[in-house]
Each structure stands twice: as C-alpha cells, then as structure tokens.
C-alpha cells in the first residue's frame, strides 16, 4: 500500500482537503493519539463515514529479526520476548519448540506441563489487558480498572514461578529455567477460583450493558468467507464462525492430553470479537486447573551446554498465542548463532482485515473495530 500525501494549498493549518473531492477530510490517527498506540492510521472521512483507511505501521520497527542473528540461541530468549511483552511466554513458545527440534533435545514431562500452565496464564494476562483497553476506548473507565486489578492475581502467580512480573524469560530449549516453588499449587488454585468469580462480574456491567451493546452489535461485521480469505487469525477468526485453533489442529507439548473447548460465535461483529476472549479465559482457567492436577514430579530441565548449535537445517513451528497464530521459521547453518529467524506475528496479518472492515464504517466505530482486531503495534513492527 503506497501512501500519497497531497499537501494542497491551504491557508488553514491542520486541514488537508483532497483536490477534486472537497468533502473528504484526511485524519491522521497518529502515533501521538490516545486512541491508537504506536501506530498511524490514516483515515479519510466524508462527514462521518470512513471512505478509506490506510494503516501505516513501522513506527516502532527495531530490526528484531536482524538482531537475532548476532546472538546465540540462549541469548535470544530475553531479546525475543520483548516485541510482545504482555504475553511473553506466548511469543517465546514457538521459538523454544523450534530450537529444541533443531538441537534435537528432549523435554521432561513436568516441564511440558509447566510450560502449558505458564502459557495459559500469559494468555489470560494479555486478554485482560486487552479487555481493559477496550473499555477505555469506549469510555468505560470501570472496565479499565477491574481487569487490571484481576490481572494482578495472575501476575503474582507468574512472579512466583519465574521471578519477574512481566518479563518472564522463563522458557529455555530443554524445559523451563527453574522449578515451581512449594506453595505454588495451592496458591494458584485459590487465585484461579477467585479469578473465575471475578470474570463472571464482567457480564453485568459490560457485556449486558445496553450502551455497550449499542456500540458493538452489528458493527464491523466480518463474514466467514472474508475472514478465511483475508487471513484473519485467533479470536477474530473464531468470532466469525471458523473453528480453528492450533492447540487442536497441531497440538504441541501436552495440549492433546487436556480437555477444553474451542469457542466460536457466528455473528462476526465487534460484540462477538469482544465476547470470545472472555469465554476463552474461562477455558484457560480450566486448562490450568487440569494441568495442575495432572502434573507429574520430576526434572524440569534437560542440561544444555553453553553454546548449543544444530546442524544445517530449517525449522518451522507455530503456536496459538493470545492473539492468534504465531510462527517462527529458523534457518541454521551449524553455528551457535542462527542464520535467519523469521517471526510471523498475528498482528501484522490482521492489517488487511482492519482496512477492509474500516471502509464504510462510521468514524465513531473506529476504536471499537480497531481494537477488536487484537492489534499490538510493537509486535507487528518487530
């Protein structure tokens, strides 16, 4: 998408009128805007209807994939969790799975269960953050505070396990870095049961609130065929009626031994895209409680040398992160540092869907559609 900026001759600063169509106003919902994050969205408005929306990512591009080539496989771990720091285990998971396949190393059973537990905790942490920002985009300050408070329960658990509240750096090729402390299981069960009761409170004040429903029902409807053709992924895809979850399609670690449902809804509007993650959080709590029960005792890490390296090979692994399908493609040429790491993120793949849905919508619907796309600017720009 090439973006042309036409600076027509105008004496009033701040107004760009197109040449022929003098009714179209170009708004830059830019990086410095309380409603957009680090991401510029150029929106052409005719009155109140959006005529065209041009996403302009790249504001926080850092060159993550190039920087990976200068670090060895272990040093890449705190580096690669930074693009999506709110869901740090999710973005690290396919990387460690790929490196394990490259180095050809086995993972103990207990480590697999711990990894599943931490991945699901991180999924809930991200979904709560996402719900909080959804509330504040629509002006609902209470819906901003409650998920942030409930997130603290889960961050406490993650901090007990890994040692840091947000920047976990907990997964390594070969397992996890340290075992869970002794009182983790009973504290986790207590916190998760309370968390489940808190999740039920969101229904009255948010999902059943007629004002919220009037803003999101019927807004930004994504039909099933369009969702599949445009490449949507994650909760966006499942809210349009497509039952596709990598945890069921290509199970990794111990997901095939755990019992959970894949949540879908038929409507495909913003309400469904906000409702599906809420239901998915209940399923996550179920998964964690089952895994805590079934977890065997044993070692949690296979010993690894200081400079692990694999042969000349290419690996591709994908995982269901909180926002959708996250995949890594690693090319190795036998050195301790990878030759090429390609990181394929769900946020970047939602951009065509966003542009498609915003066309023809009203300007007031823009925050509701934009945020329901699960777009995280730092991850999309890498």
């Amino acid at each position, binding site marked *: 998408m090439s973006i042309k900026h036409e600076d027509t001759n105008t004496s009033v*600063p701040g107004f760009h009128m197109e040449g022929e169509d003098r009714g179209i106003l170009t708004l830059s919902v830019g990086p410095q805007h309380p409603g957009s994050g680090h991401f510029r969205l150029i929106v052409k408005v005719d009155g109140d209807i959006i005529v065209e929306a041009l996403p302009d990512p790249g504001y926080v591009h850092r060159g993550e994939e190039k920087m990976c080539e200068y670090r060895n496989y272990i040093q890449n771990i705190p580096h690669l969790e930074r693009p999506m720091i709110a869901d740090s285990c999710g973005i690290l998971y396919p990387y460690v799975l790929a490196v394990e396949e490259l180095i050809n190393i086995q993972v103990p059973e207990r480590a697999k269960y711990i990894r599943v537990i931490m991945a699901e905790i991180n999924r809930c942490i991200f979904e709560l953050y996402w719900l909080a920002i959804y509330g*504040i985009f629509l*002006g*609902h300050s*209470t819906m901003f505070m409650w998920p942030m408070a409930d997130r603290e329960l889960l961050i406490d658990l993650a901090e007990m396990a890994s040692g840091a509240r947000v920047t976990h750096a907990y997964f390594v090729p070969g397992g996890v870095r340290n075992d869970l402390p002794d009182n983790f299981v009973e504290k986790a069960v207590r916190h998760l049961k309370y968390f489940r009761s808190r999740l039920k409170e969101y229904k009255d004040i948010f999902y059943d609130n007629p*004002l919220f429903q009037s803003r999101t029902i019927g807004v930004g409807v994504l039909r099933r065929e369009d969702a599949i053709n445009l490449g949507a992924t994650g909760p966006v895809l499942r809210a349009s009626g497509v039952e596709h979850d990598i945890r069921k399609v290509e199970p990794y670690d111990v997901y095939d031994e755990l019992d959970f449902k894949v949540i879908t809804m038929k409507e495909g509007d913003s309400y469904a895209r906000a409702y599906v993650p809420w239901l998915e959080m209940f399923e996550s709590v179920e998964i964690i409680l089952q895994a805590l029960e079934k977890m065997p005792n044993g070692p949690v890490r296979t010993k690894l040398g200081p400079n692990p390296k694999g042969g000349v090979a290419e690996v591709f692994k994908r995982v269901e992160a909180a926002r959708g399908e996250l995949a890594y493609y690693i090319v190795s040429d036998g050195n301790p540092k990878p030759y090429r790491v390609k990181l394929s993120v769900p946020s970047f793949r939602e951009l065509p869907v966003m542009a498609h849905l915003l066309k023809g919508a009203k300007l007031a619907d823009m925050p509701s559609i934009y945020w329901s796309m699960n777009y995280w600017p730092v991850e999309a720009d890498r």
Partner: protein
Amino acid sequence: MVIAMATVSEFKFSEFVKSVLWLLFWVILIFSLIVLPIIFVILFYIPEPVINGVRINPYLLLTMLTNPQIGAPLIKATIESTFFKIAVFPGFTFAALFATVLIYAERKVLAKMQLRVGPYHAGREAFWWANSLGGFLQLIADLLKLLGKEIIVPAGADKPIFWAAPVVLVVAAAGLIALIPVAPNWVIADIDVGLLAVFALLGFFPLTTLLASYASNSKYPFIGGLRALYQLISYEIPLILSVLGVVILAGTLNLTGIVNAQNPYWFIILLPIGAVIFFITALAELERIPFDLPEAESEIVAGWLTEYSGMAYGLIQLANYIKMYALSALFVTLFLGGWMGPQIASSIEFFDVTIISAEEANGVTWFAIKTFGIALLMIMMRGINPRIKIDILLRTAWSKLIAIAFINVFIAVALLYLGVVPIAGGA
C-alpha cells in the same frame, strides 16, 4: 558571552536616605490623590445604613466590631444583604465549595467502585484517623498546578473568543446558581419567570462551546465542537418538555412557588417519568459519561477543549462542576421538594440574636443532603457506563425522549383534571 559577576555595593548612607525619601514621596502622593478622595466619597455621599431602626455611623460601627454582643445585629444584616448572598451564600463561594466537595466525592466514589483508592497522599496527615479520607487536599494541589502552567494559544486562533470562552462558561454557570432557592427566603434572584430564565441561561452553553471550538483553529476541536452542538441542542428540547408537567401541576414558573406547591406529595411521586427524563437530559447537558462525546478521549483527543491548557482548562472544569451542582439543585427543586423535610436542624444564635432561623437552617441542610444525593447518582452513572455513539444519541433524543416527555405531559394534565392535585395558586 560575558558572564556578569554580581558586585556587592557598599552601603552609602546618602543612598539609603534617598531611597526612603523616594518611598515616602510615592506613599504621600497615592494617599492624597486616591485614598483620601475615596474616604471622602464614602463619608459624604453614601448614606448611613439603617439596621433595626438604628443609624450606623462610623463610631457605632467600630464599637460593634469590637463588642460582639452589640454587634450581633450587624452580622445578621450582613448575612441578609445582597452582596453576601451573591458572593458567599448561596452564591458563588458556596457553589464553588460544593463543586470542590463534588470533585473529591467523584474521585473517591469512582475509585471505590473500581476497587482502588482515589487521591491518597495529599493531606493524609490531617486525616490520620480516617484512612479512606486521604487526599482531601489533592484539589488544592491540582489547582496550584494549573495556575502554574502556561496557557498556550494555538497559531491562527481567534484570540478574543479563545480567551473569553472559559470566562463566559463560568459566568453562565454561576448565573444558574442565582436562580435556585436554597431555603425559604434564600434566593438571590426571585424572578416570577424563574424557570424560563434557567432555560435562557442554559442556551448559552451550546453557543459558547461552538465558539470555543471554532476559535481553536484545529481539526479535533472542530469535530468535537460540532458534536457538542448537536448534542446540547438536541437534548434541550426533552429537558424543557419534561419540566412542563411540573409547571402544569404547580401552576407557576417561580421556583420558590414550585417548591411550596410540593406540600403533600413531592413531584417525583406524581411524575416519575418526567424525573427520569430530566435526569437523563441533565446528564447530556453536562457532557458527562455516558453522554461524553464532545470530550471523547479515545477518538478525538479531548474534543472541543483540546487546545485549552493551564488555568483556561481549570476554568472550564470549574464551570462543568458548578453546572453539575446547579442542575442537581434544579432537579431537587423541581422534583424532590427543594428544602422541605422533617425538622432536624436548629437555629443558629449569636448572643441572643437569631442569625439563621430554625426553618432556614433546616431547609439548607435538607437541600444540601438531597443535592449531594443526586450528584452521587450522577457519579454512579459515570462509573458503570461506556460512551454512547452520536447517531444513537441523536435518535434517542429526537424520537424516544420527546415522545416519552409528551406522555409525561398528558399524565400531568390528567392528574390535574382528575382532581388528584389541587389547582394551585393563580399565577
């Protein structure tokens, strides 16, 4: 670059004498040219006030100020004078203090609903015995911060209107306070068409908002100002219609008369639909959540007040909260019986002279309690609702609310002609 060193000059006595004489010269000049004529004007041309049949001359005034027992009628006369009513109670100072308490209550109640502590550290030493009352002085801190900020005027802005708009907003909000009766004799302006004057003053707000947004010369205020105009104009009509039922039942437009007409039953029992519609449209007039569009933060940075910073922003927020107090007080006056309530307060006496009689004190207390209750309800509505969209806002105002308000008028007329409410006093 020359770095100047500060030189300490030596003390010269002649310089000292010269500076003292210079100061003395200016003092004598100002005193004789300005202060003395003012004193002469006051002494010669202003007639001596008469209190309780006694002419007050300056000697008596000084005696009264130093001897409280003789001076008690002076206090009573001051309280009943017009200047006191406008400036202090029930005028601007009372409204500003009420607005202050409202801002504090809003932050704390909203915080409690959101499971957090609101302002906590400012002023906590003073309230060590009540852990949840910390942060009482946070408003003073915010006020000092706003006073210290620079007011940035955008390039190409229309300067006279840009500077005048916040002041006009505060003035119009303060004008609303002048009409509201707080206790049986305590109203600043007892106009016969009081309710009509309220709506005339409410008409200032859309106009000033639009002018403020145009004068800012920027894209986001432009959009916000248009949205504010649509919203404020559309919601004035259901506001006026919902009050029509009250006027029919009370038979007068005078606000004191409306309160007096609620003697057996308050109007909220007879006209509940009208009360609900008045509440909703008052929320829309105040631009509070859920009708927060003109200041919708996530879409149009801060709406029509984006370009206002520093004390201009402070004045706009003050106008908003005074308007909130005024509309809550109006709701209490029209529907909840004003100052009426069982007698719980006693009179305030000062050396055997009744400064505030028992029924006045009682009226003021009940009025304050009821207004605070309605304001708390407005705060709760903010806590539980998201923002409404512009097309649903306009559709609701023009079709649904006007229809329900008309039903309310029919109920009022039916109540009158079925004899449930006596046809009250002629005017």
